[in-house]
Protein backbone atom coordinates (compact mmCIF):
# COMPACT_ATOMS: atom_id res chain seq x y z
CA UNK A 1 0.00 0.00 0.00
CA UNK A 2 2.62 2.46 1.09
CA UNK A 3 5.00 1.13 -1.50
CA UNK A 4 2.62 1.71 -4.41
CA UNK A 5 2.14 5.34 -3.47
CA UNK A 6 5.89 5.69 -3.23
CA UNK A 7 6.18 4.13 -6.67
CA UNK A 8 4.06 6.78 -8.33
CA UNK A 9 5.96 9.65 -6.73
CA UNK A 10 9.27 8.10 -7.66
CA UNK A 11 8.14 7.61 -11.22
CA UNK A 12 7.23 11.30 -11.49
CA UNK A 13 10.57 12.23 -9.93
CA UNK A 14 12.42 10.02 -12.42
CA UNK A 15 10.75 11.69 -15.38
CA UNK A 16 11.35 15.20 -14.05
CA UNK A 17 15.02 14.32 -13.55
CA UNK A 18 15.36 12.87 -17.03
CA UNK A 19 13.91 16.03 -18.56
CA UNK A 20 16.14 18.24 -16.37
CA UNK A 21 19.23 16.31 -17.44
CA UNK A 22 18.36 16.65 -21.13
CA UNK A 23 17.83 20.40 -20.66
CA UNK A 24 21.14 20.74 -18.78
CA UNK A 25 22.96 18.77 -21.47
CA UNK A 26 21.38 20.92 -24.17
CA UNK A 27 22.48 24.07 -22.36
CA UNK A 28 26.03 22.75 -21.96
CA UNK A 29 26.38 22.11 -25.67
CA UNK A 30 24.24 24.80 -27.30
CA UNK A 31 23.64 27.63 -24.82
CA UNK A 32 27.02 28.04 -23.11
CA UNK A 33 29.54 29.98 -25.21
CA UNK A 34 32.83 28.47 -26.36
CA UNK A 35 35.52 29.29 -23.81
CA UNK A 36 38.29 31.49 -25.22
CA UNK A 37 41.49 29.64 -24.32
CA UNK A 38 40.29 26.07 -23.84
CA UNK A 39 37.66 25.82 -26.52
CA UNK A 40 35.03 23.11 -26.41
CA UNK A 41 36.95 21.03 -23.87
CA UNK A 42 35.86 23.50 -21.19
CA UNK A 43 32.30 22.12 -21.48
CA UNK A 44 33.43 19.22 -19.30
CA UNK A 45 33.55 21.83 -16.53
CA UNK A 46 29.74 21.85 -16.08
CA UNK A 47 29.65 18.08 -15.73
CA UNK A 48 32.75 17.90 -13.53
CA UNK A 49 31.71 20.59 -11.04
CA UNK A 50 28.13 19.32 -10.80
CA UNK A 51 29.29 15.75 -10.06
CA UNK A 52 31.79 16.93 -7.45
CA UNK A 53 29.10 19.07 -5.83
CA UNK A 54 26.63 16.18 -5.59
CA UNK A 55 29.40 13.95 -4.20
CA UNK A 56 29.97 16.41 -1.35
CA UNK A 57 26.23 16.74 -0.67
CA UNK A 58 25.81 12.95 -0.64
CA UNK A 59 28.52 12.48 1.99
CA UNK A 60 27.01 15.26 4.07
CA UNK A 61 23.60 13.56 3.92
CA UNK A 62 25.28 10.30 4.98
CA UNK A 63 26.81 12.12 7.98
CA UNK A 64 23.42 13.53 8.97
CA UNK A 65 21.81 10.10 8.63
CA UNK A 66 24.59 8.60 10.77
CA UNK A 67 24.06 11.19 13.51
CA UNK A 68 20.30 10.65 13.43
CA UNK A 69 20.77 6.88 13.66
CA UNK A 70 22.96 7.21 16.75
CA UNK A 71 20.42 9.53 18.36
CA UNK A 72 17.54 7.18 17.67
CA UNK A 73 18.34 3.76 16.17
CA UNK A 74 15.83 3.54 13.35
CA UNK A 75 16.58 1.36 10.33
CA UNK A 76 15.48 4.03 7.88
CA UNK A 77 18.46 6.26 8.77
CA UNK A 78 20.83 3.39 8.08
CA UNK A 79 19.18 2.89 4.70
CA UNK A 80 19.55 6.59 3.87
CA UNK A 81 23.23 6.49 4.88
CA UNK A 82 24.06 3.43 2.73
CA UNK A 83 22.14 4.82 -0.24
CA UNK A 84 23.85 8.18 0.07
CA UNK A 85 27.38 6.79 0.39
CA UNK A 86 26.81 4.54 -2.63
CA UNK A 87 25.58 7.41 -4.76
CA UNK A 88 28.27 9.75 -3.44
CA UNK A 89 30.94 7.28 -4.54
CA UNK A 90 29.44 7.10 -8.04
CA UNK A 91 29.41 10.89 -8.36
CA UNK A 92 32.91 11.21 -6.95
CA UNK A 93 34.08 8.68 -9.55
CA UNK A 94 32.34 10.64 -12.30
CA UNK A 95 33.93 13.90 -11.13
CA UNK A 96 37.38 12.27 -11.04
CA UNK A 97 37.04 10.68 -14.49
CA UNK A 98 35.67 13.89 -16.00
CA UNK A 99 38.46 15.87 -14.33
CA UNK A 100 41.06 13.48 -15.67
CA UNK A 101 39.73 13.73 -19.22
CA UNK A 102 39.88 17.48 -18.87
CA UNK A 103 43.31 17.41 -17.24
CA UNK A 104 44.86 15.87 -20.35
CA UNK A 105 44.34 18.96 -22.58
CA UNK A 106 44.56 21.49 -19.71
CA UNK A 107 47.65 20.25 -17.83
CA UNK A 108 48.93 17.86 -20.50
CA UNK A 109 48.61 14.93 -18.11
CA UNK A 110 45.81 12.62 -17.06
CA UNK A 111 46.86 12.73 -13.45
CA UNK A 112 48.88 14.94 -11.13
CA UNK A 113 49.69 14.00 -7.53
CA UNK A 114 48.80 17.43 -6.24
CA UNK A 115 47.31 17.68 -2.71
CA UNK A 116 43.79 18.09 -4.02
CA UNK A 117 43.80 15.15 -6.39
CA UNK A 118 45.56 12.99 -3.83
CA UNK A 119 43.07 13.87 -1.11
CA UNK A 120 40.10 13.20 -3.38
CA UNK A 121 41.48 9.74 -4.16
CA UNK A 122 41.85 9.17 -0.43
CA UNK A 123 38.26 10.31 0.17
CA UNK A 124 37.15 7.80 -2.45
CA UNK A 125 39.05 5.02 -0.64
CA UNK A 126 37.63 6.13 2.71
CA UNK A 127 34.07 5.74 1.52
CA UNK A 128 34.78 2.54 -0.42
CA UNK A 129 36.08 1.10 2.87
CA UNK A 130 32.67 1.87 4.39
CA UNK A 131 31.29 -1.12 2.47
CA UNK A 132 34.16 -3.33 3.64
CA UNK A 133 33.24 -2.51 7.23
CA UNK A 134 29.56 -3.25 6.60
CA UNK A 135 30.41 -6.51 4.86
CA UNK A 136 32.42 -7.73 7.85
CA UNK A 137 29.60 -7.44 10.41
CA UNK A 138 26.74 -9.94 10.44
CA UNK A 139 24.54 -8.57 13.18
CA UNK A 140 22.21 -6.05 11.57
CA UNK A 141 21.89 -3.66 14.49
CA UNK A 142 25.64 -3.65 15.13
CA UNK A 143 26.37 -3.15 11.43
CA UNK A 144 24.13 -0.10 11.33
CA UNK A 145 25.62 1.31 14.55
CA UNK A 146 29.26 0.85 13.48
CA UNK A 147 28.51 2.17 10.01
CA UNK A 148 26.98 5.29 11.58
CA UNK A 149 30.11 5.85 13.70
CA UNK A 150 32.28 5.28 10.64
CA UNK A 151 30.50 7.89 8.49
CA UNK A 152 30.97 10.43 11.28
CA UNK A 153 34.69 9.65 11.56
CA UNK A 154 35.02 9.63 7.76
CA UNK A 155 33.45 13.05 7.53
CA UNK A 156 36.24 14.45 9.71
CA UNK A 157 38.60 13.60 6.86
CA UNK A 158 36.25 15.34 4.42
CA UNK A 159 36.37 18.51 6.53
CA UNK A 160 40.15 18.43 6.73
CA UNK A 161 40.35 17.69 2.98
CA UNK A 162 38.09 20.69 2.35
CA UNK A 163 40.37 22.93 4.40
CA UNK A 164 43.55 21.51 2.84
CA UNK A 165 42.23 22.15 -0.64
CA UNK A 166 41.64 25.77 0.25
CA UNK A 167 44.90 26.58 1.98
CA UNK A 168 47.58 24.35 0.40
CA UNK A 169 49.13 25.33 -2.90
CA UNK A 170 47.67 23.37 -5.77
CA UNK A 171 47.42 23.23 -9.54
CA UNK A 172 43.65 22.77 -9.36
CA UNK A 173 41.51 25.93 -9.11
CA UNK A 174 38.99 26.45 -6.32
CA UNK A 175 35.38 26.98 -7.40
CA UNK A 176 33.37 26.97 -4.16
CA UNK A 177 34.53 29.16 -1.28
CA UNK A 178 38.03 29.81 -2.56
CA UNK A 179 40.57 32.06 -0.86
CA UNK A 180 43.01 34.43 -2.45
CA UNK A 181 46.02 32.39 -1.41
CA UNK A 182 44.87 29.22 -3.08
CA UNK A 183 43.95 31.17 -6.18
CA UNK A 184 47.53 32.42 -6.40
CA UNK A 185 48.81 28.88 -6.12
CA UNK A 186 46.55 27.87 -8.95
CA UNK A 187 47.65 30.51 -11.36
CA UNK A 188 48.00 28.02 -14.16
CA UNK A 189 44.41 26.93 -13.84
CA UNK A 190 43.30 30.45 -12.99
CA UNK A 191 44.07 31.84 -16.40
CA UNK A 192 42.02 29.15 -17.97
CA UNK A 193 38.79 29.25 -16.07
CA UNK A 194 38.60 30.07 -12.36
CA UNK A 195 37.26 33.61 -12.64
CA UNK A 196 36.69 32.24 -16.11
CA UNK A 197 32.97 32.33 -15.78
CA UNK A 198 33.23 35.70 -17.43
CA UNK A 199 29.96 35.30 -19.22
CA UNK A 200 26.54 35.19 -17.59
CA UNK A 201 25.57 32.32 -19.86
CA UNK A 202 28.35 30.23 -18.36
CA UNK A 203 27.10 30.95 -14.84
CA UNK A 204 23.52 30.09 -15.81
CA UNK A 205 24.64 26.84 -17.47
CA UNK A 206 26.67 25.88 -14.40
CA UNK A 207 23.72 26.50 -12.11
CA UNK A 208 21.36 24.54 -14.36
CA UNK A 209 23.81 21.67 -14.47
CA UNK A 210 24.24 21.63 -10.68
CA UNK A 211 20.45 21.72 -10.25
CA UNK A 212 19.91 18.85 -12.71
CA UNK A 213 22.57 16.73 -11.03
CA UNK A 214 21.10 17.48 -7.60
CA UNK A 215 17.73 16.26 -8.90
CA UNK A 216 19.44 13.13 -10.20
CA UNK A 217 20.85 12.58 -6.72
CA UNK A 218 17.44 12.92 -5.09
CA UNK A 219 15.89 10.55 -7.63
CA UNK A 220 18.61 7.95 -7.16
CA UNK A 221 18.32 8.25 -3.40
CA UNK A 222 14.55 7.70 -3.56
CA UNK A 223 14.93 4.69 -5.86
CA UNK A 224 17.68 3.21 -3.71
CA UNK A 225 15.66 3.61 -0.52
CA UNK A 226 12.67 1.96 -2.20
CA UNK A 227 14.92 -0.89 -3.35
CA UNK A 228 16.18 -1.36 0.20
CA UNK A 229 12.62 -1.47 1.52
CA UNK A 230 11.72 -4.13 -1.04
CA UNK A 231 14.78 -6.14 0.00
CA UNK A 232 13.73 -5.85 3.66
CA UNK A 233 10.17 -6.89 2.82
CA UNK A 234 11.37 -9.88 0.82
CA UNK A 235 13.61 -10.97 3.69
CA UNK A 236 10.75 -10.65 6.17
CA UNK A 237 8.51 -12.73 3.87
CA UNK A 238 11.23 -15.37 3.50
CA UNK A 239 11.54 -15.67 7.27
CA UNK A 240 7.77 -15.98 7.63
CA UNK A 241 7.64 -18.59 4.90
CA UNK A 242 10.39 -20.65 6.51
CA UNK A 243 8.65 -20.39 9.89
CA UNK A 244 5.35 -21.48 8.32
CA UNK A 245 6.94 -24.45 6.57
CA UNK A 246 8.77 -25.58 9.68
CA UNK A 247 5.63 -25.14 11.75
CA UNK A 248 3.72 -27.28 9.22
CA UNK A 249 6.22 -30.11 9.41
CA UNK A 250 6.37 -30.26 13.18
Amino acid at each position, binding site marked *: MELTRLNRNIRILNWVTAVALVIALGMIFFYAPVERTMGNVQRIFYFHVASAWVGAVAFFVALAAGLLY*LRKPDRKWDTVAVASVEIGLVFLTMATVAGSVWGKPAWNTWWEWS*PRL*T*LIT*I*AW*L*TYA*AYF*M*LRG*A*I*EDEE*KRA*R*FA*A*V*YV*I*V*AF*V*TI*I*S*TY*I*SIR*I*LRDIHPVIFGGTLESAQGAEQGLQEFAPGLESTRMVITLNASVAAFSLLYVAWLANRIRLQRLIDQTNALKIRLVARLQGGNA
Partner: protein
Amino acid sequence: MTSFNLNNSPFWAAVWAIVWKDLQIEKQTRQTISVMSMFSLATVIMFNFALEANLAAARQVATGLLWSTILLAGTLGLNRSLAIERENQTMEAVLMAPIQRGAIYLGKVIGITLFTLILELILIFVFIIFFDKPLWRPPVLLVLFLGTVGYIAAGVIVTSMTIQTRTREVLLPVLLLPLSLPLVLPAAMAVAAYMFPQTPPFAEVQSPISIVIIYDLLMLSAGFLTYHYVVES
Protein backbone atom coordinates in the same frame (compact mmCIF):
# COMPACT_ATOMS: atom_id res chain seq x y z
CA MET B 1 28.27 15.26 34.09
CA THR B 2 31.86 15.59 33.05
CA SER B 3 33.95 18.04 34.93
CA PHE B 4 37.16 19.01 33.23
CA ASN B 5 38.84 19.96 36.45
CA LEU B 6 42.27 18.35 36.38
CA ASN B 7 42.57 17.85 40.13
CA ASN B 8 40.95 14.73 41.51
CA SER B 9 37.97 14.80 39.18
CA PRO B 10 36.59 11.28 38.67
CA PHE B 11 36.79 11.74 34.91
CA TRP B 12 40.55 12.33 34.81
CA ALA B 13 41.14 9.78 37.53
CA ALA B 14 39.53 7.23 35.21
CA VAL B 15 41.61 8.39 32.25
CA TRP B 16 44.88 8.08 34.17
CA ALA B 17 43.83 4.72 35.59
CA ILE B 18 43.41 3.38 32.05
CA VAL B 19 46.76 4.83 30.96
CA TRP B 20 48.47 3.42 34.06
CA LYS B 21 46.91 -0.01 33.43
CA ASP B 22 48.21 -0.06 29.84
CA LEU B 23 51.68 1.01 30.96
CA GLN B 24 51.70 -1.75 33.60
CA ILE B 25 50.69 -4.37 31.02
CA GLU B 26 53.42 -3.11 28.70
CA LYS B 27 55.95 -3.19 31.56
CA GLN B 28 55.09 -6.83 32.25
CA THR B 29 54.83 -8.14 28.69
CA ARG B 30 56.89 -5.67 26.63
CA GLN B 31 54.90 -6.90 23.66
CA THR B 32 53.57 -3.82 21.94
CA ILE B 33 56.68 -1.65 21.72
CA SER B 34 59.02 -4.52 20.86
CA VAL B 35 56.74 -5.76 18.06
CA MET B 36 56.40 -2.24 16.70
CA SER B 37 60.14 -1.55 16.77
CA MET B 38 61.11 -4.86 15.18
CA PHE B 39 58.55 -4.34 12.44
CA SER B 40 59.76 -0.78 11.85
CA LEU B 41 63.39 -1.83 11.55
CA ALA B 42 62.45 -4.53 9.05
CA THR B 43 60.43 -1.95 7.10
CA VAL B 44 63.29 0.56 7.00
CA ILE B 45 65.69 -2.10 5.77
CA MET B 46 63.14 -3.18 3.17
CA PHE B 47 62.84 0.40 1.95
CA ASN B 48 66.61 0.60 1.62
CA PHE B 49 66.51 -2.55 -0.44
CA ALA B 50 63.75 -1.08 -2.64
CA LEU B 51 65.84 2.04 -3.22
CA GLU B 52 68.80 -0.15 -4.24
CA ALA B 53 71.07 1.46 -1.68
CA ASN B 54 70.72 4.70 -3.64
CA LEU B 55 71.39 6.98 -0.70
CA ALA B 56 70.61 10.18 -2.58
CA ALA B 57 67.14 8.90 -3.51
CA ALA B 58 66.58 7.53 0.01
CA ARG B 59 67.43 10.91 1.54
CA GLN B 60 64.92 12.69 -0.66
CA VAL B 61 62.06 10.44 0.35
CA ALA B 62 63.14 9.95 3.98
CA THR B 63 60.25 11.93 5.51
CA GLY B 64 57.73 9.93 3.51
CA LEU B 65 59.42 6.71 4.61
CA LEU B 66 59.33 7.84 8.23
CA TRP B 67 55.60 8.51 8.12
CA SER B 68 54.82 5.28 6.24
CA THR B 69 56.76 3.31 8.82
CA ILE B 70 54.94 5.02 11.69
CA LEU B 71 51.54 4.35 10.09
CA LEU B 72 52.22 0.67 9.45
CA ALA B 73 53.79 0.06 12.86
CA GLY B 74 50.89 2.03 14.38
CA THR B 75 48.32 -0.47 13.05
CA LEU B 76 50.27 -3.25 14.80
CA GLY B 77 50.34 -1.35 18.09
CA LEU B 78 46.64 -0.53 17.90
CA ASN B 79 45.67 -4.10 17.10
CA ARG B 80 47.89 -5.45 19.85
CA SER B 81 46.74 -3.05 22.55
CA LEU B 82 43.03 -3.47 21.84
CA ALA B 83 43.15 -7.19 21.07
CA ILE B 84 44.68 -7.86 24.52
CA GLU B 85 41.62 -6.22 26.05
CA ARG B 86 39.31 -8.56 24.16
CA GLU B 87 41.34 -11.73 24.62
CA ASN B 88 41.49 -11.33 28.37
CA GLN B 89 38.01 -9.81 28.48
CA THR B 90 39.41 -6.88 30.42
CA MET B 91 37.28 -4.54 28.32
CA GLU B 92 34.11 -6.06 29.79
CA ALA B 93 35.49 -5.45 33.28
CA VAL B 94 36.41 -1.86 32.43
CA LEU B 95 32.97 -1.27 30.94
CA MET B 96 31.35 -2.48 34.15
CA ALA B 97 33.03 0.31 36.09
CA PRO B 98 30.81 3.37 36.55
CA ILE B 99 32.98 5.64 34.41
CA GLN B 100 32.31 7.59 31.26
CA ARG B 101 33.04 5.84 27.97
CA GLY B 102 34.84 8.98 26.81
CA ALA B 103 37.33 8.52 29.66
CA ILE B 104 38.17 5.01 28.45
CA TYR B 105 38.64 6.37 24.94
CA LEU B 106 40.98 9.15 26.08
CA GLY B 107 42.91 6.71 28.26
CA LYS B 108 43.46 4.33 25.36
CA VAL B 109 44.47 7.19 23.04
CA ILE B 110 46.99 8.55 25.55
CA GLY B 111 48.42 5.09 26.27
CA ILE B 112 48.88 4.01 22.63
CA THR B 113 50.16 7.49 21.71
CA LEU B 114 52.87 7.08 24.37
CA PHE B 115 53.91 3.71 22.89
CA THR B 116 53.99 5.20 19.38
CA LEU B 117 56.05 8.18 20.59
CA ILE B 118 58.63 5.83 22.09
CA LEU B 119 58.75 4.00 18.76
CA GLU B 120 59.21 7.34 16.99
CA LEU B 121 62.18 8.23 19.19
CA ILE B 122 63.82 4.97 18.11
CA LEU B 123 62.92 5.63 14.48
CA ILE B 124 64.27 9.18 14.55
CA PHE B 125 67.55 7.82 15.84
CA VAL B 126 67.63 5.19 13.07
CA PHE B 127 66.74 7.70 10.37
CA ILE B 128 69.37 10.18 11.51
CA ILE B 129 71.98 7.44 11.23
CA PHE B 130 70.78 5.95 7.93
CA PHE B 131 69.61 9.03 6.05
CA ASP B 132 71.46 11.88 7.78
CA LYS B 133 68.39 14.11 8.19
CA PRO B 134 67.97 16.85 10.85
CA LEU B 135 64.98 15.12 12.46
CA TRP B 136 65.93 16.19 15.98
CA ARG B 137 64.75 19.76 15.39
CA PRO B 138 62.07 20.73 17.95
CA PRO B 139 59.44 21.76 15.33
CA VAL B 140 59.83 18.34 13.67
CA LEU B 141 59.28 16.63 17.00
CA LEU B 142 56.21 18.80 17.58
CA VAL B 143 54.71 17.90 14.19
CA LEU B 144 55.45 14.21 14.79
CA PHE B 145 53.69 14.46 18.13
CA LEU B 146 50.63 16.24 16.70
CA GLY B 147 50.41 13.80 13.81
CA THR B 148 50.62 10.83 16.13
CA VAL B 149 47.84 12.12 18.37
CA GLY B 150 45.45 12.47 15.41
CA TYR B 151 46.42 9.12 13.95
CA ILE B 152 45.91 7.25 17.22
CA ALA B 153 42.67 9.17 17.91
CA ALA B 154 41.29 7.79 14.64
CA GLY B 155 42.99 4.45 15.25
CA VAL B 156 41.41 3.71 18.63
CA ILE B 157 37.87 4.30 17.38
CA VAL B 158 38.40 2.29 14.17
CA THR B 159 40.29 -0.56 15.84
CA SER B 160 37.60 -0.85 18.52
CA MET B 161 35.19 -1.56 15.67
CA THR B 162 37.37 -3.79 13.50
CA ILE B 163 38.34 -6.17 16.32
CA GLN B 164 34.63 -6.93 16.74
CA THR B 165 34.20 -7.91 13.08
CA ARG B 166 34.74 -11.16 11.22
CA THR B 167 37.90 -10.09 9.38
CA ARG B 168 39.51 -8.38 12.41
CA GLU B 169 43.18 -7.51 11.84
CA VAL B 170 42.82 -7.53 8.06
CA LEU B 171 40.21 -4.82 8.06
CA LEU B 172 42.09 -2.27 10.17
CA PRO B 173 44.64 -0.99 7.62
CA VAL B 174 41.96 -0.89 4.91
CA LEU B 175 39.88 1.47 7.04
CA LEU B 176 42.54 3.37 8.96
CA LEU B 177 45.13 4.20 6.29
CA PRO B 178 42.73 6.18 4.05
CA LEU B 179 41.23 7.86 7.13
CA SER B 180 44.61 9.03 8.36
CA LEU B 181 46.12 10.18 5.07
CA PRO B 182 44.44 13.63 5.12
CA LEU B 183 46.35 14.09 8.39
CA VAL B 184 49.64 12.57 7.29
CA LEU B 185 49.84 14.45 3.99
CA PRO B 186 50.09 17.94 5.59
CA ALA B 187 52.18 16.56 8.48
CA ALA B 188 54.69 15.08 6.02
CA MET B 189 54.73 18.38 4.13
CA ALA B 190 55.56 20.24 7.34
CA VAL B 191 58.33 17.81 8.30
CA ALA B 192 59.78 17.96 4.78
CA ALA B 193 59.97 21.76 5.04
CA TYR B 194 62.32 21.39 8.02
CA MET B 195 64.70 19.04 6.24
CA PHE B 196 66.63 21.86 4.57
CA PRO B 197 69.72 23.27 6.28
CA GLN B 198 68.07 26.63 6.94
CA THR B 199 64.91 26.81 9.06
CA PRO B 200 61.89 27.70 6.93
CA PRO B 201 59.83 30.82 7.80
CA PHE B 202 56.81 29.95 9.92
CA ALA B 203 54.47 31.22 7.21
CA GLU B 204 55.53 28.30 5.03
CA VAL B 205 54.53 25.59 7.50
CA GLN B 206 51.59 27.43 9.05
CA SER B 207 48.96 25.97 6.70
CA PRO B 208 49.94 22.29 7.01
CA ILE B 209 50.38 22.52 10.78
CA SER B 210 46.98 24.16 11.26
CA ILE B 211 45.37 21.38 9.20
CA VAL B 212 47.03 18.81 11.46
CA ILE B 213 45.75 20.56 14.59
CA ILE B 214 42.21 20.87 13.19
CA TYR B 215 42.22 17.17 12.27
CA ASP B 216 43.42 16.27 15.79
CA LEU B 217 40.69 18.27 17.49
CA LEU B 218 37.91 17.02 15.21
CA MET B 219 38.99 13.39 15.41
CA LEU B 220 39.40 13.49 19.20
CA SER B 221 35.92 14.97 19.60
CA ALA B 222 34.37 12.50 17.14
CA GLY B 223 36.02 9.58 18.92
CA PHE B 224 35.19 10.91 22.36
CA LEU B 225 31.51 11.29 21.51
CA THR B 226 31.00 8.07 19.53
CA TYR B 227 33.18 5.64 21.53
CA HIS B 228 30.16 4.79 23.66
CA TYR B 229 28.36 3.35 20.58
CA VAL B 230 31.36 1.24 19.61
CA VAL B 231 32.05 -0.62 22.86
CA GLU B 232 28.46 -1.20 24.00
CA SER B 233 27.17 -4.59 22.90
